[in-house]
């Protein structure tokens, strides 16, 4: 457990303890210390018990990581399946294209819709409207929450048709799928996706009207980028500082280091903290959104750069429009390929991949031998990469609101963390919010 003892507060210090940050996936703690008018210390501490996937992946067969690594995260299992498939296929020198590539993209769209709708409606919107949860929100705004659940369900339906179930789908394998989706079931997704796209557009309009705290932040953004499409499974690793490299160079630029105040690892890209996720993707790729999604972004008042992290909810809604649009495009153009998968025979080698999980870039790297035994695995989840920037956001919020009551400030800090939809199960890590004030 990544659990450093909290520093003892001296006598006279005002401090608030919240057992664990709510409405995030997994468990973590946030520690804030304010002395007079000075912010002394912010640390996002993540100490969910680690499950040590990279350890037990060693010695497994190279066909197993897609199913095994899905278990890192119940909210974004497809991301793990996609990153592991692409990395292992790269190690074996196999490329999956044509309709199989499209079906993978469709499956990923399902996960984006499901995950984004969950976050927007059940986890994040309650912050802006003053409710403790989506369930409480539904007591006053049932139709709105029902719209969110309907939207989320369509994402899940896509995953069920392609993957068999929403959480830990069973149909993904190296080279493609175990079996192709039933044509009638795939075609039947069209109508619900059309409705979902309308619901997603309504979602953008809804969240664009929220009252956003006045915060501006200049961050380093990192995501995949592809010349022809909004990034999901493929592309180069790019940053707002001009980085543009193949994903195989990920570890040459991204470093994970121990920081003295925390037991967690902080990632930097070329020495700077950075952010992955919807805002980063949008900033670096907004011109490759579908015309409808671009129009929705424009109507919502989003420019080419989003500097207010609280507006991430709008970007998430815009990406949901895109995911519905893209899913529709794939469903409408789908022609069944001859085979459900291409063969991926093992060979000794190393493979790398990044794909875009709903929360941002997810890196996998595997080394396998000629029998297909995994010798080594490395996984860098999105939340671990964004962690240092999330702390920076909390610092900005505290500095900008030193005069507000502690309770309000605490709520703002929690929101500043939830803006990024952190997935602490992925980052192996616990949010305990603690504001000390003297």
């Amino acid at each position, binding site marked *: *457990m*990544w659990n450093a003892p909290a520093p003892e507060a001296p006598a006279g210090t005002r401090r608030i303890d919240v*057992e*664990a940050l*709510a*409405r*995030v*996936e997994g*468990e973590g703690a946030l520690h804030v210390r304010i002395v007079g008018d000075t912010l002394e210390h912010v640390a996002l501490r993540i100490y*969910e*018990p*680690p*499950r*040590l*996937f*990279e*350890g*037990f992946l*060693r010695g*497994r*067969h190279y066909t*197993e990581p897609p*199913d*095994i690594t899905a*278990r*890192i*995260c*119940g*909210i974004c*299992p497809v991301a793990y399946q996609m990153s592991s498939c692409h990395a292992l296929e790269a190690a074996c020198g196999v490329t999956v294209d044509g309709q199989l590539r499209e079906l993978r993209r469709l499956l990923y769209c399902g996960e984006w819709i499901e995950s984004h709708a*969950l976050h927007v409606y059940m986890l994040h919107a309650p912050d802006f409207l003053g409710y*403790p*949860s*989506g*369930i*409480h929100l*539904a007591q006053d705004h*049932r139709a709105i*929450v*029902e719209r969110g*659940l*309907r939207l*989320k*369900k369509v994402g*899940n339906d896509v995953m069920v048709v392609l993957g*068999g*179930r*929403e*959480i*830990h789908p*069973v*149909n993904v*394998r190296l080279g493609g799928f*175990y*079996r192709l989706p039933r044509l009638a079931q795939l075609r039947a997704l069209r109508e619900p996706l059309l409705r979902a796209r309308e619901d997603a557009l309504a979602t953008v309009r809804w969240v664009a009207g929220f009252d956003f705290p006045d915060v501006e932040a200049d961050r380093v953004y990192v995501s995949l980028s592809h010349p022809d499409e909004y990034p999901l499974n493929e592309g180069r690793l790019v940053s707002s500082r001009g980085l543009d490299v193949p994903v195989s160079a990920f570890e040459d630029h991204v470093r994970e280091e*121990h920081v003295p105040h925390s*037991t967690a690892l902080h990632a930097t890209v070329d020495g700077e903290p950075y952010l992955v996720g919807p805002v980063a993707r949008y900033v670096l790729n907004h011109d490759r959104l579908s015309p409808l999604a671009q129009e929705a972004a424009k109507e919502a008042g989003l420019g080419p750069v989003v500097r207010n992290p609280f507006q991430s909810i709008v970007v998430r809604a815009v990406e949901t429009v895109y995911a519905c649009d893209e899913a529709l495009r794939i469903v409408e153009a789908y022609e069944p390929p001859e085979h459900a998968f291409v063969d991926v025979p093992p060979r000794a080698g190393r493979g790398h991949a990044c794909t875009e999980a709903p929360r941002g870039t997810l890196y996998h790297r595997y080394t396998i031998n000629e029998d297909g035994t995994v010798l*080594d695995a490395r996984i860098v989840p999105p939340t671990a990469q964004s962690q240092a920037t999330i702390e920076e956001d909390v610092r900005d919020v505290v500095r900008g609101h030193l005069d507000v009551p502690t309770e309000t400030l605490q709520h703002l800090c*929690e929101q500043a963390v939830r803006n990024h939809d952190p997935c602490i*199960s992925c980052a192996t890590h616990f949010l305990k919010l603690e504001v000390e004030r003297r």
Partner: protein
Amino acid sequence: MAPLTSAVSRTADPFVRTGERPTLAVWKFASCDGCQLTLLDCEDELLAVAGQVDVAYFLEASSATVAGPYDVSLVEGSITTAHDAKRIREIREQSGKLVVIGACATAGGIQALRNFAGPDGGPDVSAYAAAVYAHPEILEALPTSTPVSEHVFVDFELRGCPIDKHQLLEVVSAVLAGRKPQIPNYAVCLECKRLGAVCVMVAHGQPCLGPATQAGCGALCPSFSRGCYGCFGPHEGPNLPALGDRFAELGVDADGWLRALRTYNAYAGPFRKEAEHVERTRS
């Protein structure tokens, strides 16, 4: 493991209610969050369920929490730290009925692979930790990942990696009504037969753990043209040595059979014992 019928023996207990409606709490231990997400994935039923109970503690979904005791606790995840071993005892004391959900909570999950990672086949976390962290010495992890039932009395164990949402709704409804949950304990094979699905092992020669695995998924993998990989864990009294022989006939070597037994339910009795038997007889 606690017997699956334990809920029955306790239905005579008066159902403790702290208010107008029963209170529900959802707890997380070492896990992927997927089983509690299953509750949020009940899009059609979620608001109806929320109308029947007071959701008193569900941190993934709500920042409003109410202190215990709770009428029903759902627990996800396995016990992997000394702190969590203490926490689960506190939760048990606060809970009228304690239902554990998913392979982590019922069998230790995939992280229970550490239970066999030592040079002698016993528990060892150090090698795995060294593969992940530059400073594994600061890790405060137990050498084992264990199911909740090894620590406290459990009223009902719902299997699956992840659990099935219809089964979850059935268990929650049954526990609230004080009746026995209607959860089958037969093998996946029966679900295949009911679906009229072609047997992937007989017809296509694919290794399949279905004959040894508890039903509940709806024979998902066979209906997607792949063999079952056992994510609901062993059903009652599986003939694993016979299934191992069949796997061998289909070209699966001893390592492959061991890997098949040692995934998401590796620490569940029958899978664990068969794997230990294979290791012993091989060396």
